[in-house]
């Protein structure tokens, strides 16, 4: 394709299409029992999307309850060390400590409009579970969160937090007992209780309309960033970076920049023990097209299409799939997908803690680790925005354990 047509393609970008496809990715691969519920959800979402009351209420609560806008902070010592001008989008300062809350606020407001009184969610790191439990407490809804038994162990503080908020946490022992199994179990619950239950998915994955809807609720990240960087630098950044699990903080950050083709968008997946070790969670870098959890997208699987166990030091990235829109943007070359290992993420974690007095989530530490390693390869003095998707309090146990310290 010629450059000029490429550019046009992005000027008029408005995927997904009416069937929920981003190119060949997306769709609705679910049991028939759920199809009417997905149609109902899509119709309800389309209605509120253009409803000025809903938009006002969403904006108001993002401001007064979540604490938005989150600052765009120029990290001076980090910039000096890496030889660029680095700005951090401080999603870690949101209420509940991560970007996840933007989406849960939107979806819970939608559930209320739909008259659903029972909310279910899946969670990996526990951040989406905490955000969902928080919103359910705020609006007086019943909340049940599915969480892999292994994650219940490694994210114990978040489990306790959810319980304090009045949610029921259900440990999932089936399969590999991590995020994908929590999602299987949440889907089974939804299939069984679909008439009174709202399934609040925590990332830009799952059957249409979830990838589109979650992106829309998260795009506030990129919209604010754009205004903030224009205000402080009077120009757009050269690079915008985000870590990629399912892809919600990345899509929320990238989406408003898609048309600005001079801005390079970079997503960092979790390379675990290294891509070649096979023990990682980098779906785009190391996987191929497949279908899981209602969507067609890049997927980590064996030759026969069975899903393979993933590994990442960060529970929030430990998932074999990735949202369909990122798969599409990666194929089209609009987003560059790279990866960082556990070790590189830990270096990023330490670097930000020491240089800026900010303890990042292990998920966000992946983009910091990547930046640390590749800063020299980027054009000198680049303006770089990095989405600091969450804070690291929840990861203290994990990091302490690696240093053989018991808290």
């Amino acid at each position, binding site marked *: 394709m010629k450059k000029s047509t490429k550019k046009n393609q992005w000027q008029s970008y408005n995927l997904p299409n009416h*069937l929920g496809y981003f190119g060949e990715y997306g*769709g*609705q*691969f*679910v*049991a*028939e*029992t*759920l*199809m*009417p*519920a997905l*149609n109902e959800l899509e119709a309800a979402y389309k209605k509120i999307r253009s409803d000025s009351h809903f938009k006002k209420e969403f904006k108001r609560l993002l401001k007064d309850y979540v604490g938005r806008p989150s600052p765009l902070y120029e990290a001076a010592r980090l910039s000096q060390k890496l030889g660029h001008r680095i700005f951090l989008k401080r999603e870690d300062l949101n209420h509940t400590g991560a970007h996840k809350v933007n989406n849960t606020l939107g979806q819970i407001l939608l559930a209320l409009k739909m008259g659903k009184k029972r909310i279910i969610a899946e969670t990996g790191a526990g951040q989406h579970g905490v955000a969902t439990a928080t919103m359910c407490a705020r609006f007086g809804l019943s909340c049940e969160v599915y969480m892999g038994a292994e994650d219940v162990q490694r994210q114990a503080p978040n489990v306790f937090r959810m319980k304090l908020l009045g949610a029921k946490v259900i440990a999932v022992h*089936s*399969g590999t007992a991590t995020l*994908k*199994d929590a999602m*299987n179990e949440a*889907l*089974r619950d939804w*299939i*069984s*209780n*679909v*008439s009174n239950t709202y399934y609040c998915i925590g990332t830009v994955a799952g059957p249409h309309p979830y990838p589109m809807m979650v992106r829309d609720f998260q795009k506030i990240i990129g919209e604010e960033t754009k205004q903030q960087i224009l205000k402080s630098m009077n120009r757009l950044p050269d690079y915008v970076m985000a870590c990629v699990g399912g892809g919600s903080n990345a899509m929320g950050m990238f989406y408003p920049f898609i048309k600005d083709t001079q801005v390079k968008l970079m997503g960092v997946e979790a390379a675990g023990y290294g891509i070649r070790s096979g023990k990682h969670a980098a779906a785009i870098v190391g996987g191929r*097209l*497949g*279908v*899981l*959890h*209602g969507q067609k997208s890049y*997927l980590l*699987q064996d*030759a*026969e*299409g*069975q*899903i393979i166990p993933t590994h990442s030091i960060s529970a929030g990235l430990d998932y074999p799939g990735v949202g369909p829109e990122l798969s599409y943007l990666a194929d089209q070359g609009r987003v560059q997908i790279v990866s960082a290992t556990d070790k590189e993420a830990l270096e990023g974690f330490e670097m930000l803690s020491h240089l800026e007095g900010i303890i990042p989530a292990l998920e966000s530490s992946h983009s910091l680790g990547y930046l640390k390693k590749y800063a020299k390869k980027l054009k000198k003095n680049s303006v770089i925005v990095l989405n600091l998707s969450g804070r690291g309090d929840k990861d203290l146990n994990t990091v302490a354990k690696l240093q053989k310290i018991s808290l």
Partner: protein
Amino acid sequence: MNRIEQKFKLLKEKNQKALVTFISAGDPDLKTTEELIYSLDQNGVDIVELGMPFSDPMADGPVIQRSSQRALQSGTNLNKIFTTVAHVRKKTQIPILLMGYYNPILQYGEEKFFKKCASVGVDGALIVDLPPQEGKRVKEIAQVNGCSLIFLLAPTSDPERIKLVCKNASGFIYYVSLTGITGAKLQSDLQKQSALKLLKKTTQLPVCIGFGIKTAEQAKKTSQLGDGVVIGSALIEMIEKHQGKKAPQEISTWIKKIAKAVH
């Protein structure tokens, strides 16, 4: 006309309902699966559904999850299932359909999958997470190869979905008796379900009702509401209890009783 269609024609002539049974191929191993098929055939089962195991069966309850897991552990894959069916076809012409999730088929190659079905004697496929609007291409490929593509409907199905499924279905329509996953408890409101009523008005195809049927009495009652019943989890639980290898003999009296009740 493939074996499924022939079977329903025959049953209609005899004014009989169909007994369809589901087992996971390769649980606990494919040798036992082969023996089980013979036993089901000899004891009055009309159609065998063979589960293709998947690591993440999101519409299945614990019984079929465990069964899929055992099948995967015994090294079951699509090629081995096809080899087993080819072998079975030397002894029986019982209609066989493969049931499972989309990803293993997508990776195997949809064309290759249905060509193989046709060549070994598989009569149809039911892909749980491939609703008709996503399955247009697959439907064409199945058709070209003489295979039925079975779709599901459920109590939640609205008139629009019922119309869409009926337009695309072949072989028979699988009506899920309850809003839930496999292995759940049968609900008593079945004959009042408006989706089932509308479905029967809309389609010429046979309607088989499944999910939650565990006893001969339930099978008899449920079969009267459609053209047949599907039994899965109850049978698999029995196979599990009998440690597999002895299962073909152990299930025969039970299946015989159910078949008698249905026919």
